[in-house]
Structure formats: structure tokens, C-alpha cells
């Protein structure tokens, strides 16, 4: 009761999002559900027929599923890093970004591993991963690290939301179902915003924020090592861990910009999410573009310069302008240059231009994931001598495309539903100046 009183003005503004959904909102949700449903149909079909319905074959045995996996895990990494850095640095403008980046992180971290499940040939034996776990396998590292990361991120998000649940619990005028009210009460764990309770929460948040940063880097490095530990041309690289982390931060920050822009536009948050936020993210994007460009260059430059047999075959494939060439240029040059050109000129810097360059970077990051996996598998050490075209060149099948789209739709749906359940912008509603605590 007391907490809600303080925030009454803001609550009135945000209540409609929680209470009802517009017609457009319903159409949007229905559209997403439809895409997700097609994804369900696709995975059912794949499970009944076997992976023959995908475009994967013996040479290219990892494909879109792994691409989407590293894409979403990358977005998750960027979201987790952003929210924990913001929490620790605690700048005055952080409020609109914190919860959205946390939500983005968690939803990506949930969707990413689902793609691994799509990729596994024998889902019925999944328990073997735990029963017969082999510590020397990078997949085991992955499973452990991702599970830990997910748990820590969920607890971190929840800690930030307790205050919000308490407010919603205490806000009598909120017109939502009884069940939801009870859910808010349960989730609020008797939080009354006493100094002592606040101290506990802040302590916990600080601890987890500090943990999330190294864990995020570990998780994504381990994912990079799924590839880096093999001897395949293009994967056998010592910088794969850091390269993946930088590339993911780059693509993930861009994803955050797009998510923010979408919320700003569709939820009419112009008042809260301002140019200032976009400007700061644009600066981050710019710095990361330099790092990304630098690492990309050193990765391919040394492969190109050395004339190694296997690397040369891969490089030729990537530079082939009747094949992967344009995509390689897009993922490595345009993605790096676009933010530099658009954002380096102060005049050109607007929310629209920043969002536009973010869209380029996000798509480029996805293409990058694709280019890391598929051309490498098409360049084996021994020549691929097969008469079946689909065995030599990978083309995604409808099943894989449907599941890819379903992943993005799920991501959007989760964000939409989250905005219906909690106030996604904690701006001055439930975040107050933190109490200083020692870790």
C-alpha cells in the first residue's frame, strides 16, 4: 500500500499496458503465435521423419540451428553484460535500459538452447548428457555453463522485479484478474521496501551483477570453442573465444537498440527512452565496431596471407562473389563501416539512423554466424566427392526456415507478453537510489 502510493502517477500511466490489449496488439500476438505454430509443425515433422527433412547432410552436419543458437546466445550475452554493467556503474540514465536488456538476455538465453534440441538426433536420450557426462567434451562445458548462466540471469532479473511486483500487488486500482493479483503477491515475497529488505536486495543484485559478467564471457567463449576445438579450416583459431564475445556484444547491442526503438515506437515510450539513450548505445556500438573490425581483419588477414592449403580453400569460398562473397562483405565490412559512417557524423545521428545501422549490424551478425559455420563445413580437409548436389552445398530446408522464424517470433512474443505482465520501464517507479552496501 505504502509503496504504491509513492508511485501513483507513474502507475496510472503504465496500468493500461497491464490491464488491456489493443486490437493491434491482439493481431500482433496472433501473428506471432501463428509463426510459432508453424515452427511447432516443423519440429513435429522433423521428429517424425528424421533430420532428412532439414538441409543438413553428412558434410554440412551443423546448420541453421547452430547459427540461430550462437545468434541468440550472443544477444543474450550482450543483454546480460549491458544490464550488469549498468547496475554496477549505476549511471543516472540507466533506468529505461536495465529491465529491457535483462528481459532480452533471458529470452535469448532460453530460445538459444532450444535450437540445440532441434539439432540433436535423439532427443529421447538427452538425459545421457548428464548420466554419461564426459568432462573433456566442449558440449559438457556448454551445458553446464549455459545452465548456470540462465539460473543466475533469472535470479538477477527476479531480484530487480521484486519491487515491481510489490507495487503491483499494492496498487488497488489495477484492473487485472484475481489470479494475476495472487501471482503478484506470491512473487513479491512480502516485500515492503524496508531499509533492511532493500539492503538484502541490493547486496544480492550487486553480487549477481559481478558474477554475470565473467559468466557471460565464459559461456560465449565455450560456445566459440565448440568450433575452436576442432581442426576444421576457419574454426581452428586461437582468437575464437574473444572474437565471438566481441562479435556477440556488437550484434547484441544492436539488437538492444532495435528492441528499445520498438518499445519506444509501439508502446509510446518517447518520453522515457530518449535520444540520450540511443546516443550512448550508438557510442558503444561504434567502439565495438572498431573492435569487431579489428578482430575480423586479423582473423582473415593471417589466414589469407599464409596460403595454408585448407584455409585458402575456405578463403576462396568466402571471397567468391558468385557464392558467399557478397555476404562476407556485408557481414565483415558493411557491418563495421555502417555504424562508423552513420554515427561518426554528428549531424547524421538521429534515432532513426541509429536504429537503421543497428538493423544492419544485427542482420550482419546473423549472417556472420552463418558464414562461420556453413562455408567451413563445405571445405573439408579431404575433397568432397559426391554426386549429390544437396550433399555438397547446403541449402536450408523449409523446416529449418520455419523454426528460425519461430525463434524470432518467440523472442518478440516473450517481450510483448513480458510488457503485459510487468512494467518494462522501471523509470522512477520502483528503482530508487540504491543503498550503499559492501559485497
Amino acid at each position, binding site marked *: 500500500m505504502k509503496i504504491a502510493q509513492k508511485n501513483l502517477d507513474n502507475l496510472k500511466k503504465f496500468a493500461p499496458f497491464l490491464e488491456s490489449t489493443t486490437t493491434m496488439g491482439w493481431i500482433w500476438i496472433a501473428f506471432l503465435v501463428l509463426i510459432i505454430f508453424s515452427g511447432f509443425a516443423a519440429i513435429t515433422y522433423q521428429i517424425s521423419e528424421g533430420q532428412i527433412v532439414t538441409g543438413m547432410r553428412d558434410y554440412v552436419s551443423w546448420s541453421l540451428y547452430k547459427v540461430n543458437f550462437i545468434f541468440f546466445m550472443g544477444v543474450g550475452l550482450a543483454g546480460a553484460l549491458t544490464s550488469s554493467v549498468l547496475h554496477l556503474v549505476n549511471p543516472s540514465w540507466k533506468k529505461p535500459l536495465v529491465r529491457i536488456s535483462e528481459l532480452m538476455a533471458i529470452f535469448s538465453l532460453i530460445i538459444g538452447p532450444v535450437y540445440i534440441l532441434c539439432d540433436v538426433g535423439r532427443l529421447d536420450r538427452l538425459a545421457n548428457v548428464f548420466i554419461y557426462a564426459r*568432462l*573433456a567434451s566442449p558440449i559438457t*562445458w556448454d551445458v553446464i555453463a549455459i545452465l548456470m548462466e540462465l539460473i543466475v540471469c533469472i535470479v538477477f532479473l527476479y531480484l530487480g522485479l521484486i519491487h515491481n511486483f510489490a507495487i503491483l500487488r499494492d496498487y488497488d486500482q489495477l484492473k487485472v484478474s484475481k489470479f494475476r493479483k495472487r501471482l503478484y503477491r506470491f512473487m513479491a515475497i*512480502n*516485500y*515492503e521496501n*524496508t531499509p533492511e529488505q532493500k539492503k538484502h536486495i541490493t547486496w*544480492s543484485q550487486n553480487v549477481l551483477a559481478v558474477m554475470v559478467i565473467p559468466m557471460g564471457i565464459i559461456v560465449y567463449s565455450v560456445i566459440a570453442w565448440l568450433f575452436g576445438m576442432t581442426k576444421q579450416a576457419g574454426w581452428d583459431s586461437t582468437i575464437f573465444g574473444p572474437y565471438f564475445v566481441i562479435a556477440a556484444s556488437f550484434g547484441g547491442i544492436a539488437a538492444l537498440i532495435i528492441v528499445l526503438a520498438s518499445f519506444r515506437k509501439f508502446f509510446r515510450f518517447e518520453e522515457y527512452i530518449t535520444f540520450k539513450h540511443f546516443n550512448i548505445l550508438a557510442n558503444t556500438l561504434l567502439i565495438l565496431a572498431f573492435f569487431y573490425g579489428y578482430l575480423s581483419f586479423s582473423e582473415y588477414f593471417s589466414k589469407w596471407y599464409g596460403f595454408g592449403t585448407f584455409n585458402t580453400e575456405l578463403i576462396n569460398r568466402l571471397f567468391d562473389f558468385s557464392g558467399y562473397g557478397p555476404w562476407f562483405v556485408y557481414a565483415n565490412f558493411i557491418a563495421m563501416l555502417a555504424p562508423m559512417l552513420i554515427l561518426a557524423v554528428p549531424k547524421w545521428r538521429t534515432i532513426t539512423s541509429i536504429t537503421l545501422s543497428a538493423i544492419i549490424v544485427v542482420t550482419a551478425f546473423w549472417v556472420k554466424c552463418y558464414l562461420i559455420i556453413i562455408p567451413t563445413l563445405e571445405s573439408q580437409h579431404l575433397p568432397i566427392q559426391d554426386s549429390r548436389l544437396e550433399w555438397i552445398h547446403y541449402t536450408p530446408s523449409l523446416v529449418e526456415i520455419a523454426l528460425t522464424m519461430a525463434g524470432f517470433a518467440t523472442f518478440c512474443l516473450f517481450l510483448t507478453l513480458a510488457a503485459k505482465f510487468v512494467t518494462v520501464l522501471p523509470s522512477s517507479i520502483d528503482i530508487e537510489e540504491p543503498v550503499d552496501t559492501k559485497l
Partner: protein
Amino acid sequence: MKSNRISTIIVLLISMLFVQAFSYAQEDEAEYDGYITKLSLSYIKNTNNVKTLRCVITAKKGEINLPLENAELKFYAGNEQSLLLGVQKTNNEGFASLDINNELKLPQDDSGAVLYRVEYKGLENSKDVTAEVSVVDINLELSLEEIDSVKTITVKGTRIGKNGEILPVKGQDLTIYVKRLYTNLKIGEINLSEDEGIGSTEFKSIPGDSVGNILIIAKIEDNELYATVEKSKEIKWGSIVSYDRTSKKRELWTNEAPIWMAITLAIFLLGVWYHLVRVFIKMRKIKKLGEQIEGVA
């Protein structure tokens, strides 16, 4: 005109196919029409002086070569007054063998050779077949000695003459083998001398078993006069091979991961869970504190 001829040929071919199909559907007898029955006979005298006759009987038609199973084979010795040695039935590989009783007095010809014969009385539609092999019985003596610290394999070939006298086998080539897992490995050749019928060769080092044992075999193979004769002996001449394969190399494929991985993982998990548990405790405290306040209120 031309197309006409071609169509005629096609019709012919098709009708032939039908005829073929029809004939396959007939009674048993017709089905092995055209098969040529083949019988082969070989003679082996092994290291224990057991003489064995081995037979393989097959039916051949074009590319197809089938073993005849359960065929009754009669083994004989001698030419004019042949002596029945025994009867055997073939197994599913068309194979049958018979050990010759060493106590039997076998009819010899002038050169001391014995003629062995095997007969197959065919079924209604397969022909009778007979195979023969003529063999002079010889003995090989194998001696393994170290002469002036040179490991030497010596073989002496003898045969029993018409009057029971022992004669040398002169000028015969034979091969020395070592028994290996799948086949015998040739390690040398010996030519029996023209006077005494003795020959020798040097033994060079070769891996044996875990105590160094190897089986050395002296063998005459598929010889016109003597057929196949072998003599073998076991001796500790092989180099002892070490089967201890516990390597000190770095290995990642074994079931046990390197210890540092386990330690790193343990530190990682302990660190994460220690803090998570502390956070959970804090959350419970928050709940309890809230309960107190609500109680007061």
C-alpha cells in the same frame, strides 16, 4: 526394315526372359540344370604326422559358384585294388576332410607314391565326379639350435623306401614361416641339400608373445610329388613384446578428463552456487522481514 529386325530381337529377348522365368518355377531337378559340378582334392600332412585329405565340392554355372552341402564323398587309396579309406559328408561350405589312419598299409606304385581318389556319386541330374592326387609320403625333421650364438633353423627331409630303408629328400625347396594372428609370416627359405637332404637358415629377430614364444613352421606347399607337408616347433626365440600400453602422453579421449578441468569446473560451480545460495537465503530473509511487518500492521 531395320526397325523391324530390332523389334523382332526385342520380342525374342522378352520371350526368352519368360521362358527363363518359367523354368525357374519348375521342380527341383530343373533348377540345377546347367550347373557343372567341381571337385577338388588336396593332401596335407601336419606337424603331428596326421595325413588329411581335404575336399571341396562346388556347382558352377557362369559366374555363380555354389558349395554343395551334405554331399557324400568316398575316399579311396591306390589305383588297381583301391582301398576305401572312409566316407564323409560335406558341410555348408561344400567342404569335407578325412584323416588317414597311419596304421593302414597303403598301396604304393613303383616310385613310392600313393594315389588318393575321392568320388562323388551325383544325384539324378548332377554328374559323377572324381578327383585324384598322387603323393609321396615324406617326413620333415625340424631342429632349432643356437650354433655359435646364431639362431639356426635346420630341416632334414626323409622318406621311407620300398624296402623300409630311410632315404633323403634331395634338392627340395621349403619355406620357413612364423605363425601370426591371421596368416603365417614367411621368414626364410631352405633348399634341402642334394646329398643328405638337409638345409638350414638363420633366424632373425621378430616379435613373439609376452614371454617371447613363437611357433616356427617349415612347410612344403602344393608340391607335385609331396603335396603339402609341414612341421612346426615352439621356441622362445621371439623378442618379448611389452603389452603395457599405459601411456604417459597427454590424452583427451579417455574417460577421465584431465584433473585441472575437474578442478576448474569445481571452482566454477562452487563459486556460482555459493553465491546463489546466499542470495536465496537473503530472499527468505526478505520474506520473513515482510511477514513481521505485516504482522505488526
